[in-house]
Every structure is written in C-alpha cells, then in structure tokens.
C-alpha cells in the first residue's frame, strides 16, 4: 500500500468515528469471518437478485397504471388496436413496446424474480442437507422459510398485476383455491377481493400496494433480521481442516478478502440477469391479449415456482368432500392449499421434529455433509421428490403435445408415482449415504494399513 492513500483513509475513518462512534463496530465488521465454501454463496445470490428486483421494480412503478378500468387500445401494437383492455395491461404493453429500455428493465425484473426464488430454494436445500438450521439457528431458519413464502406470494401478485390473459386465469384459480378453504373460504376471498371475482376496482390498487410496498418491506425487514442473526451467531462451517471446530471459526475476513468476492457476485448476478433480460424473451404479454373472465387459452401455466400447485390441482381426482349434502371441502383445497400447507408445515416443523426424534439438543456450529446424516438426507430427498413429481405432473399436457404420451394415462400414472417414488428415492438416498460413509471407513482403514506397512518396511 502506498503512503499517499493513508492520510485520506485515516481522515475519512476519523470523520466517521467522530460523528457515529462506530469505529469498534466497524473494526469488528471488517474482520468478520466468512467460512469459505461455494455453497455458502447461494444465499448471497438470492440477496443480490432481490437487490436487482427492487432497483428494476422502482423503475417499473413509474410506468405502471394500477387500474382495471377498461379502455379501448389505440396504441401502436396492431393486433390489439381497437380492443377493450384494462389500463394496467395497456400500460405494460406500452412500456414493453414503446418505451426505450422499458422491455429490458421489465424482462430483467421478471427473470430476477424467477432466479430469486430458484436461489432461495437452492439455499434452502443447502441449509437443510447440512443441518445449518439446528440450534442455535432455528430463528434464522424460520425467518428464511417465511421469506420464501412471502417471495412466492409477492411474485404471484407481481405477474398477476399485468392483467394479461394467462395471469388473469391464474388469479381466478388463486381465488378459487382460497374459496375452497373450509368454513372461511368465501368470506376470506370476497373480503380480500372486495366482492366476488373479479373483485371491485379497489382490487388492483390493493394488489399494487401489496406488491410494491407491503411485501417488499416485509421481506426487507425479515432479511435484515436474518442477516443480523447470521452475523451475531456467526456463520456455520464444514470441518474442512482440523482448525475448524465447534468453538473456532476459520474464514476469510470481510475486508479485504471477502468484499471483492461478494461485490463480484453482486455485479455478476446483475450481469447474468440483464443479459437474460435483453436476450431471452419472458412473458410477452402483448401476445397473450387482455384477460376477461369469459376468455381462456390452452397451455396456460403459472411461473415455475407455482408449477407444483398446478400439478397438485390437476392430479386430485374429481370429488368435493360432501357429507349429507353439505360441501365441506371443495376440490381445489387439496392440491392448491393442503399440499403447500403440508410442505411448509414440514419445513417449519423440521428442526423441532429432528430434535425430538434424535434427542440432539446440542449446539452446532459445524455442518454435516449430507452423507453424515442419512435419515435427514433421505427424508429431504423424499420430500423434494414428492414435490418435484407433482411439479412434473403439472407439465404433462405439454409432454402429450410434444411427445405424444396420452395426458389421461400420464395423470393416472402420476397419481400412483407421486406416493410410491418418493419413498423409493428416500430409501436409495439413505442407502447411498450409508455406502459413502462405509466407503470412507474402508478408505481410512486402508490408509492406516498402508502407513503401518510403510513404517514396518523402511525403504
């Protein structure tokens, strides 16, 4: 380091410390340790996708009109000319096709949403399979699962705001799933929508405020708490070297080692998202046309992170649970509400369940490798398999169209497979973990024997 920079640095730090008394905190922060493993960066990727979402989202708010009032389209896109569309839809068509860089920002925003949730899911897998959620980090974990729920809702509301044909169908389905909640369903949904579907003219401003203010603030607050907790308890680590123990953390300091890496990941994530935003078309809503309750199109699907729900809705056989003429549980409840409730219930309860069944009440700063906890890994793989199979079932109509496998037959096969295969996956995962563990033991024994042999025979 040259001596020319030093007086400036010293002067700046002094200025800051005199006004904020933050030098001790800053010193701790700069020397905060980041254990080094690539999978620990997945949460950061999600965070950076969120940053891109907020930045691009703010830009979009300057163009979007949150109104379902119908107007006759007189803009420059010929196929819509003269058609009745909502102001919301017209504003997004205008932004996409007639505002310079508008389509780039809009597509980047949508890709960022898809990547945000994908990164959270990968991060969740890492947390689960390494046991990072164990004491003392349960709070951090629950905050994370809550953020996943919020992100799903936020994204769903976000793409529904456009009021195009496909997302409008999706909104009707969401309403119907809510309606299917026993006893409270129809009150709850009419209360939310301010009337029967498609709701009143208050609905759109409500969704808009939820999407641009309420959900983002909630996510930001939970995210801050989440990161604070991670920092206060310090990050978990693998036992890669002997120096890493339950009591000693080994990692790269925030400054100068980790900072350029994290910054590079932030800028790199943004770069990937902008590349996608410009080069790969996403949600070309001008092609779908406006939504009307009496219109629909074939091939309508939700965004990928809700694909498991469309699979659930399609797989459940035809029945409304009715007792003595009294409809207790309408059909969409099982695939659209009960299924995600079970999955998220599992996620929330898991730390407690594991503690209960293994009796492990200890503090954990060291992480397991997936093979070190065969039962946990097996159950996790089984759950993932279950959700993924239902997700696949949701795309079986396009499989029929593309590969000719009859849809009706696929549905029947999936109805069986989604219960049988996850058990099989879990068993295989458990077996693989045990085999890997055994293999390590054998390898260890062999190395010992070879070492002994070398000692006995000087060369």
């Amino acid at each position, binding site marked *: 380091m040259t001596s020319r920079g030093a007086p400036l640095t010293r002067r700046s730090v002094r200025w800051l410390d005199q006004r904020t008394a933050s030098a001790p905190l800053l010193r701790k922060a700069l020397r905060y340790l980041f254990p080094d493993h690539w999978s620990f960066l997945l949460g950061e*990727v999600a965070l950076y996708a969120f940053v891109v979402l907020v930045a691009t989202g703010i830009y979009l708010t300057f163009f979007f009109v949150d109104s379902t009032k119908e107007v006759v389209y007189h803009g420059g896109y010929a196929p819509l000319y003269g058609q009745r569309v909502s102001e919301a839809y017209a504003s997004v068509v205008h932004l996409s096709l007639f505002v310079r860089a508008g389509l780039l920002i809009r597509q980047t925003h949508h890709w960022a949403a898809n990547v945000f949730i994908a990164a959270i899911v990968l991060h969740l897998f890492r947390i689960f399979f390494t046991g990072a959620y164990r004491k003392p980090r349960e709070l951090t974990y629950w905050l994370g699962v809550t953020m996943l729920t919020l992100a799903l809702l936020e994204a769903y509301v976000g793409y529904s705001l456009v009021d195009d044909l496909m997302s409008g169908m999706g909104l009707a389905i969401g309403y119907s799933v809510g309606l299917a909640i026993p006893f409270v369903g129809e009150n709850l949904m009419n209360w939310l929508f301010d009337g029967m579907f498609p709701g009143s003219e208050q609905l759109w401003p409500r969704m808009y405020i939820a999407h641009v203010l309420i959900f983002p603030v909630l996510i930001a607050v939970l995210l801050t708490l989440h990161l604070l907790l991670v920092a206060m308890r310090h990050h978990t680590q693998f036992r*890669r070297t002997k120096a890493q123990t339950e009591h000693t953390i080994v990692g790269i300091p925030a400054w100068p080692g980790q900072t350029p890496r994290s910054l590079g990941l932030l800028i*790199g994530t943004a770069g990937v998202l902008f590349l*996608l935003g410009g080069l790969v078309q996403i949600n070309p809503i001008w092609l779908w046309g406006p939504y009307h309750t009496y219109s629909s*199109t074939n091939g309508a699907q939700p*965004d990928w992170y809700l694909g498991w729900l469309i699979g659930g809705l399609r797989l459940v056989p035809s029945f409304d649970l009715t007792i003595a003429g009294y409809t207790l549980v309408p059909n969409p409840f099982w695939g659209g509400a009960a299924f995600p409730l079970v999955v998220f219930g599992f996620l929330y309860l898991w730390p407690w369940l594991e503690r209960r069944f293994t009796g492990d009440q200890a503090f954990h700063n060291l992480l397991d490798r997936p093979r070190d906890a065969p039962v946990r890994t097996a159950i996790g793989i089984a759950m993932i398999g279950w959700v993924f199979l239902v997700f696949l079932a949701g795309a079986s109509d396009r499989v029929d169209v593309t590969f000719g496998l009859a*849809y009706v037959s696929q549905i029947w096969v999936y109805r069986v497979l989604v219960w049988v295969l996850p058990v099989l996956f879990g068993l295989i995962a458990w077996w693989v973990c045990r085999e890997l563990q055994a293999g390590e033991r054998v390898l260890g024994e062999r190395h010992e024997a070879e070492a002994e042999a070398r000692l006995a025979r000087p060369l």
Partner: protein
Amino acid sequence: MRAVLTIAGLAATGLLAAGAAGAAPPKHGLAAYGDHLYGQYCLGCHGPNAAGRLKQPASSTGAAPGRAQGQQGGIGPSLHGVGALAADFYLRTGYMPLRRVGLQPRRGRVFFGEHEIRALTAYVANFGGPAIPQPKPERGSLSQGLALFTEHCAGCHQVVAQGGLVTGAVPPALVEATPLEVAEAVRIGPYVMPKFSQRAITDRQLDSIVRYVEFTKDPPRQGGWGLGFLGPVAEGLVTWFLAIPALLVLCLLLGRRLRS
C-alpha cells in the same frame, strides 16, 4: 370437320348428362380418375359411392397406401355434401388416408401427387358441397383476428397457435397450416374440432383469423429468444438450466470446494 363437331357435341352432351346425374359414377375426365383412385384407397372406409360406412367389415384395419383392396376395411363418414373444400383439405394435409380408424388425423406425408389430389377432389365434389374457399388474409384485420381467435380457437390451439391439448385429442400448432388449410379446417371442423359455418364466422371474419394465424407463425420477439411462445414452462427451464448454472459457476469460482 362435321364429323369432329358431331363427335364433340355428343361427347359434350354425354359429359353434361353425366354431370347432371351427380350420383352416377363419372365416366370421363378428372372425376373419373378420382373415382378410380377412390376405389383403390378410400372405398374401404368411406363405402361404395362415398355413402359412408357405419358397420365394420370383417377386417377393420382401415385404408393405407399401397394396401390391397381385400385387406382394407373400416368405418368412415359419408362424403356426400362435404364438397371439394373438405377433400382438398384432407388430402393436402395428409390427414387422409387415415392409418387406423379411431386415430386422430394428423399432418403427415402427402401420399398423393397434385394430379391425384385434383382428381379425388373432383370426384368428391360430384356429390355436392362447398367449393374450395379463397381466403384473402390481406383484407382481414389483425386485431379482429386476435379477438376472434381468442374467442373461438385459443382454448384448443393456444392463443399464439402453438397447439394444445383437449381430453382425447391434440389440437395441432398452426405453424405449418397454409391460409387455405386454415380456411378449410374452420368450415369442416375435422375430428373433434368444432365446425364454424358462415353464420358463426363470416368470410370476412375468416380472413381476419387467417391473417392472425399467419402473424403467429413469426410473432414479434422484441424481447429476444422466443422460447416457442409457450410461456412459463420454457421460462422455468431457462431459469434452471441457463441462469442457475451460470450463477453456480460464479459461486464455484469464488468459493472453495470441500475436496480442495
């Protein structure tokens, strides 16, 4: 000279008489050749005199190109009143001959040559019915087309005509459909497709629909790679197989692995 004229006159009268007879098998010209072809490839399912066949004959495997007469047999609708419109459609797309009764007719290798198609069409036209239409997409309105397509067609064919699914059939994508084929299919309602008469969709409206279908063959992709205009399924695949691997590469660059 007079002899030639007399013979010509007699021949003309004969042809006129044959044409006026309608149901009688044509003896001369294109339609007669069509009758011959009909006997070879269509009779087995569509019955003698194109009257249709509702009862399965002994071997009911349906017609197939090159199969001998004796091996064919199946059921099929009457062709009376379907007109040159239907014959032209089914033959040009390769929907007919159908390989097996009960299968959905699909676009396939067109077995017949141009001359054969004209002949068969002339033969079927003998039994009455609409002529081959002449759609004029340039007279249609694109926005009317989108509205009409959404109302009548998008439920099965998807709003950008990428094809779809209905229980029991696969409505095809329309990327290969010529304007003429679209106009014909709308009026026929092949397989389980609804049939839209002039009352339901006027010729002018049909022009707009045809124009819109042409538009869907190359929709505007201002946003970049179109991903088949299918929507979220393809976008999800890009997320997980393009974006995430790219980001994972970044993570692997920046972070250690356990084994190193």
